[in-house]
C-alpha cells in the first residue's frame, strides 16, 4: 500500500511540476481587492497567459518586497507618489507605448503627470479620493471633516485605512498644511494629533474596510472612495463625505519594474486592462473613479451618479514623493501605533 502511495505521489509531483513550467505567465503585484478575478480569467482565456496575482495592502509594502529583490514582478500597481520615487531610483522600465493602442482611452488630464511628463513609465489604472464614510443610521451628529470623526464619543467605533502616509496627511490637513508638506517640523506638529486619534480607532484595514462597517463593528471611518461607493450601493445609509479640512486624490498606476521577466506579456496585460469593456468590469467591482473615458461612457447612469465614485469636486492635489521623509513618517507611525 505504501508503495502505491509513493508511486502515486511521485506521479503527482511530476505532473504538478510539469504544469508549472513552460506555460506563459506574468507576475502581477497589485493591491488586494483591486483586480477582479473575472478580468484575470478573461485575459488568460483570451491569451493563454497565466496570471500569478500577488497582493499587497500598501505602497510601502510593495516597495519593500520589490527592492528586496525577492519578487520577479512583471506588472506592479504603485500609487502616484510611489511611482515617482521608483522612477527617481531607476526601478521602472520604459513602456513601449506602441504596444498600448488602447492608451488613447485614458483621460488626457492624467497622461502627463509632473514626475512622468512623457507618460513613458506608467499607465493610470484607477483614481479616487480618501474620505469619510458615515453610517447615518447609527451616527446622527453632522460629520463634515476629520475633527468631527475623531471625537471621544466615537471611541472604539472608528475604522481607518492602514496607511502611514495617509494618516499623516489627514493630520496635516487639520493643521492647515498641504499633504506634501512633510518635514521634521510638521511631523512634530502632527505627532500629538495622531497620538490622540489612535486612541479612538478600533480597526486598521486597507484591504476591505467596508467589511467592518457592514458588520456593524464600526460606525464611521476614513476609507478609500471605492469602498465607500460599494457601501453606498449596498445601503444608502452609508454617506460619503469629503473632509472640509481638505483631501487629496490618488491615482493608482500600472507600471513595469526594470528586469521584469515577461515584458511582452506584461504589455499585453496592460493593454487588455485599457480596453473599455474590460475597464467597465473593473468599475463594476471596484467603483473608483475610472480614468478610462471610453469605459466611463459605458457605465450606467446610476454608477456615474454614485457620489463616492464621481464626487463633484474640482482638481485636488496628489501626493508627491517625499524622499527621505518617508522613513520619518514610517518611524513616527510605528512609534505611535506601538504606544497603545
Amino acid at each position, binding site marked *: 500500500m505504501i508503495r502505491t502511495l509513493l508511486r502515486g505521489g511521485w506521479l503527482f509531483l511530476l505532473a504538478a511540476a510539469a504544469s508549472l513550467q513552460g506555460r506563459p505567465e506574468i507576475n502581477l503585484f497589485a493591491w488586494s481587492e483591486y483586480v477582479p478575478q473575472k478580468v484575470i480569467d478573461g485575459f488568460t482565456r483570451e491569451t493563454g497567459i497565466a496570471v500569478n496575482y500577488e497582493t499587497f495592502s500598501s505602497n510601502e509594502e510593495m*516597495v519593500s518586497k520589490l*527592492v528586496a529583490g525577492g519578487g520577479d514582478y512583471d506588472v506592479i500597481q504603485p500609487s502616484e507618489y510611489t511611482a515617482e520615487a521608483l522612477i527617481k531610483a531607476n526601478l521602472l522600465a520604459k513602456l513601449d507605448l506602441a504596444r498600448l493602442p488602447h492608451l488613447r482611452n485614458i483621460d488626457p488630464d492624467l497622461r502627463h503627470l509632473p514626475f512622468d511628463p512623457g507618460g513613458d513609465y506608467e499607465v493610470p489604472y484607477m483614481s479616487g479620493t480618501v474620505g469619510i464614510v458615515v453610517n447615518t443610521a447609527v451616527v446622527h451628529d453632522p460629520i463634515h471633516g476629520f475633527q468631527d470623526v475623531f471625537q471621544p464619543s466615537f471611541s472604539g467605533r472608528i475604522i481607518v485605512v492602514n496607511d*502611514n502616509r495617509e494618516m499623516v496627511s489627514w493630520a496635516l490637513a487639520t493643521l492647515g498644511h498641504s499633504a506634501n508638506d512633510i518635514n521634521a517640523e510638521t511631523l512634530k506638529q502632527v505627532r500629538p494629533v495622531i497620538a490622540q486619534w489612535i486612541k479612538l*480607532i478600533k480597526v486598521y484595514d486597507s484591504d476591505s474596510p467596508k467589511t467592518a462597517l457592514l*458588520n456593524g463593528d464600526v460606525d464611521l471611518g476614513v476609507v478609500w472612495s471605492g469602498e465607500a461607493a460599494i457601501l453606498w450601493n449596498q445601503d444608502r445609509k452609508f454617506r460619503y463625505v469629503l473632509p472640509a479640512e481638505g483631501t487629496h486624490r490618488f491615482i493608482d498606476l500600472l507600471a513595469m519594474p526594470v528586469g521584469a521577466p515577461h515584458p511582452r506579456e506584461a504589455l499585453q496585460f496592460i493593454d487588455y486592462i485599457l480596453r473599455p469593456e474590460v475597464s467597465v468590469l473593473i468599475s463594476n467591482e471596484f467603483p473608483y473613479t475610472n480614468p478610462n473615458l471610453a469605459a466611463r461612457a459605458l457605465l450606467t447612469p446610476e454608477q456615474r451618479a454614485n457620489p463616492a465614485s464621481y464626487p463633484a469636486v474640482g482638481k485636488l492635489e496628489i501626493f508627491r514623493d517625499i524622499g*527621505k521623509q518617508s522613513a520619518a513618517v514610517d518611524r513616527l507611525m*510605528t512609534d505611535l501605533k*506601538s504606544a497603545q
Partner: protein
Amino acid sequence: MKIGSRAGLAGWLLLLPLILWFVAFVVVPTAILIGCAFCDRDDLGRIVYHFTWENFRRTVDPVYVTIFIRSIACAGLTTVICLAAGFPAAWFIGRAKPSVRSTLLLLVMVPFWTSFLIRTYAWMTLLKQEGLINGLLEYLKIIRSPLPMLYTPGAIVLGLVYAYLPFMILPIYASAEKLDGSLIEAAHDLGAGPLRVFSSVIVPLTLPGIAAGVLMVFVPAIGMFAVTDLMGGARVPLIGNVIQNQFMQARDWPFGAALGVVFLLLFAIVYWILQRAPGAAGPHHD
C-alpha cells in the same frame, strides 16, 4: 545505549550535508539577522551597510519595552491557561483504558491537524459584532446591544489558547501515558493525600511533558502575528506584529532585525531555563 565506534572520514562525509544544511540555513541567516540589526535604511527601504546603534537604542524605548512585556504577558497567560486546562485532560487521556484512550486521542488530534488559521477564523465568526455569540445572547435577552468581543486583548488570548492547546495536551499526554501507575499507588499506600500525590509524584514525573508543552506554547505564542492580527485587528500591538510590520509596510528591516535579535535573546534565555528542568530532555513527540 550507544554502539559508539569513532566516526571515520566516511562518517564525517556522510554527516556533512546535514551539518552544512544547518550552517547555511540556520547559523548564517541568524548571523545576517544580527548584522542587519546594526545597519540603516534608505528612502526606499533598502538596507544601507553602515554601522549604527540606532536600532537597538530604539528597542529600549519605553514604547517597545512595553510591547515586549505585553507580548510576554499575553503568551504567559496563554501558556498558563493551556497548562491549567490541558493538564487534567491530558492526564485523563493518558491514564485511560487503551480503547477509550485511542478514541480520545483521535478526538484531540483532529483539531491539531486542522489548520490553526481555520480554527482562528472559526472564532472570528463567533465573536464578531453580528456573530453567533452576540446573536445568541441577544436572542436570550441577556444583553441588549452586541458586545464588542473581537479586536480585544481577551480575544487575542482566546485565539492563542485555542491555537496552542493541542500543543500542550500532546506532550503531557505522552508523559502521562508512560508514567508507572504503581508509583502513584505506592504514594497512596504511604498515606499521601491526593494533593501530595499530585505535587510529589505526578508533577515531577510529568515534568518533561510539561516542559515540552510550555516550550511549544510560550515562545511561539509570543511571535504568532497571524492570530494576533486576526483577533486583535492591529489594535493591540504585540511584538510579532511590530516585527512583521517592519518587513512589510514600515520598510525598516534593520529595526525589525534589531527587535528580532532582542526576541532571540529572550528565546535563548527561556530555552536555557527550561532545559534545566529536571528530567527534561528536550521536546519529544509521538
